[in-house]
């Protein structure tokens, strides 16, 4: 559905289209949710609801998304039996297994990427928001891009 192109032969109509093209897809702003270091250096994001999103999305929905994201990162960084086994095995093979095996962390990161994509598709894109996977920002922030709703722009 997004692949078709507009072609107008009429010159005046083309002028109108180009004028409106200038005003479309303007990214209104970006909101950044910073890391929460109160529990140490583990990867955890603040669940506080940013004020800029108040008009766009339900507070509880947003906090639920952030909490699930934090839980996923906690799962990736969990220190327990399985991670010790992986670590010891890696040590015994002089860490060469990292060359052929995907680490537990990487597996969870893929899970997180799928989760964010799903959240974007189901909840945030219809509201004109897009969450960026934190790994693309060095696990520093969750970047939320707010797109402006320009559905009333035609006919100047």
């Amino acid at each position, binding site marked *: 559905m997004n692949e078709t192109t507009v072609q107008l*032969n009429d010159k005046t109509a083309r002028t109108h289209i180009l004028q409106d093209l200038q005003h479309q897809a303007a990214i209104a702003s970006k909101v950044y949710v910073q*890391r929460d*270091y109160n529990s140490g250096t583990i990867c955890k994001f603040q669940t506080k609801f940013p004020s800029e999103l108040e008009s766009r999305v339900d507070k509880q929905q947003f906090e639920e998304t952030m909490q699930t994201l934090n839980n996923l990162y906690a799962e990736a960084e969990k220190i327990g039996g399985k991670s010790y086994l992986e670590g010891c095995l890696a040590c015994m093979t002089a860490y060469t297994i990292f060359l052929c095996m995907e680490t537990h962390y990487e597996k969870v990161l893929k899970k997180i990427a799928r989760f964010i994509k799903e959240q974007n598709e189901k909840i945030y894109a219809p509201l004109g928001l897009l969450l960026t996977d934190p790994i693309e920002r060095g696990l*520093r*922030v969750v970047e939320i891009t707010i797109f402006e709703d320009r559905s009333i722009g035609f006919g100047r």
Partner: protein
Amino acid sequence: MNNCEYQQIDPQALSTPIPTPTLPQPTVVVEKEKREKARKKWEVFPGKNRFYCDGRIIVAGQSGVLPLTIGLILVTTGLFFVFDCPFLVKHLTVFIPAIGGVLFVFVVISLLQTSFTDPGILPRATPDEAADIERQIDSSGSSSYRPPPRTKEVMINQQVVKLKYCFTCKMFRPPRTSHCSLCDNCVERFDHHCPWVGNCVGKRNYRFFYTFIVSLSFLTAFIFGCVATHLALRAQGGRGLMFALQESPLVICFFSVWSILGLSGFHTYLVASNLTTNEDIKGSWSGKSGAEDTVNPYSYNTIITNCCSVLCGPMPPSLIDRRGFVPVEASSQTSATEMELPMLPVKKETNVVGGPALSQLPPHFTLTLPYSVSVQNV
């Protein structure tokens, strides 16, 4: 209005002008520019690191004395195998070269991994992020005479930790992160920049570094012991250059074993108390700098748990994504502004539509035209 045909605009094609039969050139030029500009992220990396094998291998800007380290290890072990092993195999046991071989393999592999792995470099903040942080700093309220303080305080395990702002990377450094001036990067859980290894030692390669120094101390001690045994077992002495060459591993090992053993011991202490060299030297948690009782908030308070978490914890991923492609939005921006659109001036913002999957947005966020196009006042 009966001579117009309408179809929906593809937002991805916004950076190219609307194709008309009279201007076929511009679209071709833009596509070529896009293809030429698709570079990998390591090529535009802002730090002082160098990359090999298409971004797979990363080393610090200055390789330090890494060649010397490799050379010393190879020469010493080589001489040991050539001169001492035959004698010792004959007189003692065949396990001697086997053990030596295993240790040597461990040393070399862990050395290469320490040198060539990303130590935990934090990518620099994007311009939007940096602007957002600046806004927050400015709005945090301060007098107009002094610049606002660039520190943030967080509470970790009932301990106040100060986060400093990094002017190079334009972000507040996470706890335990430090900026290495030699590599010009912020590194997570920064331990130190090791010239012997030619790289920073940080969160991701600390376990390799520890394996390296521990196995190297075993190797040097082993070679020292074997060569000393060889000398002792060989009744006659020897003279001349050949003798000196044969016994040089002894000398090299004698001088290096103390420092390497000392270093291993020091790092074992650091691992057991979950400290970094940086923190130990600065005395962050030993109460030297503060009046109150400062304890290490990151320690798990048991030696075993500390050791396990540092050495056997999950392997964190590399955050700098060396082999990914630089996003095309920057290049499409510049190429769009170079386009000739004869009718109207093109603003830069119109074409910034890259980033996360734009196709996920419902159409009314990307088009101003409603679906049923009806051109008025023609």
